[in-house]
């Protein structure tokens, strides 16, 4: 296989949560939702062994540059188990010298001791699901944690000597005022972190939130107000010395998440776990979604792969435009056709595209342009 020895990143999915949040449509399950029932320890028993088993399907590759534990709630698993997996991967592929190993964490499910253990097994970057500092907003989101816990958790992470600490925020939540949002962002920026991600709340089909909105129990905020909140977080983060390196991500210099950058640059990665997506050299595939189906496949020594697609040259180009436009370097105009450049001239005039970089032959989004990135992509591609 060509590129078999090129760098391969790993995503490891942990599909368990103690409780499902009302807005979440991720592939995650509470112990009660799983057929085999019982508490989490029973449910997740042997899970890491399944992941190890799937990793044996991976063809030989060079040293691993990045690993990302996502979920679900990866911090629900025992650090010892996670360590076992890391050692297995390290033995098979090796790690690059500066390998970035990230874990997503729920501020409620960590202790100083646990964080020290996670650091001990080699995890060097941690990302906390903070979402908001406002208890009312957290309640609408159906989140369990007390805002206090985020302070504690990030302080502990600092004393456990994680190299990079990040928090995730959600804006545009019903009932959240612009002042609430400002205070969430300011609170986040006062923590010992070098990275934040901020996402506008999306009402996903099939979630509890979608039902509440449909029945009129909850009214989604005006899009313009949500746009203002984006501008605010960008402004405050920039003032605090964090700059945007992707539409929804800001970091101090050197604090960028290299694992995510690999996604946006079309690099190769292997997703381990139920429903995980992978990409290798223009081929994408994804695993069976349900943990029980996943377990069944692997128990029979079968690949858990569910479906795949081989991208055409045109699709690869579409993805390049769609992903690169979200980055500060944008797209080189020389890589676009005359018609494509023509189609976005109006956005240059309206201030959605940066004049300076346009003059230097690049299409990059201004602040207001980032807010309509999808529209500009459609303009270029359709």
């Amino acid at each position, binding site marked *: 296989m060509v590129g078999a020895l090129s760098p391969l990143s790993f*995503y490891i999915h942990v599909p368990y949560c103690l409780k499902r949040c009302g807005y979440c449509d991720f592939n995650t399950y509470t112990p009660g939702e799983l057929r085999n029932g019982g508490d989490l320890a029973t449910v997740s028993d042997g899970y890491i062994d399944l992941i190890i088993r799937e990793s044996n399907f991976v063809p030989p590759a060079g040293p691993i540059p990045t690993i990302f534990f996502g979920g679900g709630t990866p911090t629900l698993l025992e650090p010892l188990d996670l360590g076992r997996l890391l050692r297995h991967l390290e033995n098979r592929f090796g790690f690059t010298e500066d390998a970035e190993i990230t874990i997503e964490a729920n501020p409620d499910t960590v202790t100083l001791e646990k964080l020290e253990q996670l650091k001990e097994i080699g995890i060097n970057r941690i990302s906390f699901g903070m979402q908001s500092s406002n208890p009312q907003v957290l309640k609408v989101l159906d989140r369990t944690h007390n805002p206090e816990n985020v302070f504690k958790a990030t302080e502990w992470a600092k004393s456990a000597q994680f190299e990079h600490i990040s928090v995730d925020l959600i804006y545009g939540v019903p009932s959240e005022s612009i002042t609430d949002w400002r205070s969430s962002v300011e609170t986040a920026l006062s923590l010992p972190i070098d990275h934040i991600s*901020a*996402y*506008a709340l*999306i009402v996903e089909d099939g979630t509890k939130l979608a039902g509440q909105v449909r029945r009129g129990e909850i009214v989604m905020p005006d*899009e*313009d107000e*949500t*746009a203002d909140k*984006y501008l605010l977080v960008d402004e405050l983060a920039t003032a605090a010395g964090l700059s945007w390196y992707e*539409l*929804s991500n800001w970091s101090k210099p050197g604090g960028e998440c290299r694992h*995510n950058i690999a*996604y*946006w640059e079309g690099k190769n*990665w292997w*997703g381990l776990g139920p*429903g*995980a*997506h992978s*990409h290798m050299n223009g081929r*994408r595939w*994804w695993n069976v979604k349900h943990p029980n189906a996943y377990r069944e496949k692997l128990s029979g020594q079968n690949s858990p792969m569910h479906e795949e*697609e081989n991208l055409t040259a045109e*699709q690869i180009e*579409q*993805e390049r435009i*769609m*992903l690169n436009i*979200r980055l500060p370097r944008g797209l080189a105009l020389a890589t676009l056709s005359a018609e494509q450049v023509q189609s976005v001239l*109006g*956005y240059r005039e*309206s201030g*959605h595209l940066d004049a300076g970089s346009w003059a230097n032959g690049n299409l990059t989004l201004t602040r*207001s342009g*980032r*807010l*309509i*990135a*999808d*529209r500009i*992509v*459609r303009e270029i*591609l*359709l």
Partner: protein
Amino acid sequence: MPAIELSKAPQPASTNPEQIRNFCIIAHIDHGKSTLADRMLGITEVVEQRNMRAQYLDRMDIERERGITIKSQAVRLPWRSGIDGQEYILNMIDTPGHVDFTYEVSRSLAACEGAVLLVDCAQGIEAQTLANLYLAMENNLTIIPVLNKIDLPAAQPEKFAEELAKLIGCQPEDCLRVSGKTGAGVEELLDQIVKQIPPPVGDANAPARALIFDSVYDTYRGVVTYVRVVDGHLSTRDQIQMFSTGVRHEMLEVGVISPEPVVSKGLGVGEVGYVITGVKDVRQSRVGDTITTYHNPTTKALAGYKDPKPMVFSGLYPLDGADYPLLREALDKLQLNDAALVYEPETSAALGFGFRCGFLGLLHMEIVRERLERESNLSLISTAPNVVYRVKRDDGKELIVTNPSEFPDGKVASVEEPIVRATILAPSEFIGAIMELCQQRRGLLKGMDYLSEDRVEIRYTLPLAEIVFDFFDQLKSKTRGYASLDYEPIGEAEGDLVKVDILLQGETVDAFSAIVHKDKAYAYGVMMTSKLRELIPRQQFEVPIQAAIGSRIIARESIRAIRKDVLAKCYGGDISRKRKLLEKQKEGKKRMKMVGRVEVPQEAFIAALTTDADVDKAKAKK
């Protein structure tokens, strides 16, 4: 059994007029005309039991579904009278039941000597039935009042017998009581038709004169023309001539319907049947015209011939511009069977290539549109219907405007619009609501009469334009569905009318221009601009929407520029999902129409051109 075996019954071309009775049934939609007709076919045994199906005479799907008759039919029914034991031939002429087809109704009536006035005795007479009854009385037809559906628990035969008696000047006990459903009273009705309706009178030796009361295009046979012979006779050996055009045709076939076509040698005085001449277009064989023979032509046409005149116009556009040739073909085909349909190509900056079509009325418009969509599998956008305006300019020149966008921009000396006389029948509790509605629609009260203690007939003159715009739906909703409406054109009158244009970013959107009364221009402008503000998605820039009379802006809204159009998250699995979404959006982009720099989704056009009542109707259909 009073039925007569067909072969033993009096034969076409040799039936003594004394034995013939020509009658029609006047009834409102839903009052059971088709069921009664079915029952008559059964009792006279012209249709065998095993071949019987419901609404036997309604040929088109649309007719069956909507329970209306669009085209008339004439069925020859042999019957032995239970009163005198003699043999008779009853010709039942089925008439269209709607206000748009008043002219066709009048020709069907002219082919008869009598009419069965059929009224549902749970509902009472309706406005259209009343209008057709008056037409029949004007034609000196013998009226037989019949109360139908006497088997219904809600039947009130006494009440409605009183009503009918008052209307036609008879005694309540003269009203027959039948049930088309059970067959009760139908034999007696047939006997009464024989007894009360006079036989046709004509001169067998005079030059032939036959009245065309319907003309139908058939894919296999060409045009089938339904006629009633008044004088002389028609036979297969004749060459026939249309009186109005003088055009000569070969006679390929003559026959009667019983109820399937039966070829005959000819048709004599008083007989009703069909002729086939090989003509391919109903406009060459028009309803109301007189057929005579080429070798011995009459010099005197039968009275009452009129060219159908379209009263309501609307632009029809294919949803997919590539379907334009298909729409043209479909219209050409439909016109073969619909002499009243007129159309010419037109171009709309907003909707592309289409046709401006003229119709007899709203139902005619709906039927044509539905047939085009159904029979040719087309998806269409239609512009809001409008009437014909006669515009006199300051320089004295006159202009006929059938499309609002053709209305002159400068000053005009006068504008004339069509006026109708409307008759509304309703329970008296709704008088206030009806008068209020008519008042809002620029109506003038002409009179009011009580049909019975609690039912009233209200007469108004109204501009047709006011009726064309959702009047009937409003009337129905204000009277909980109880009111019925009929109208007929009575001429033109000058009105204080202006054209309101709708502008998107300064560009006129021709499809939304409307001619309205000056006092209503503002309301129209506000309604349209706010509707469009909701319907048009936000664009990259702010889009002003304005309503204007000439250069004067009377209403204004604006669509704010879009500020947010991005999905915040884009990680591993989101990438495929996002690319697939893009591919889907490609389709949506195709359905956008550009108005200047503004992208308007087709759905927005459709929704803006549709009244709320239309939307409810569409929902009800589903």
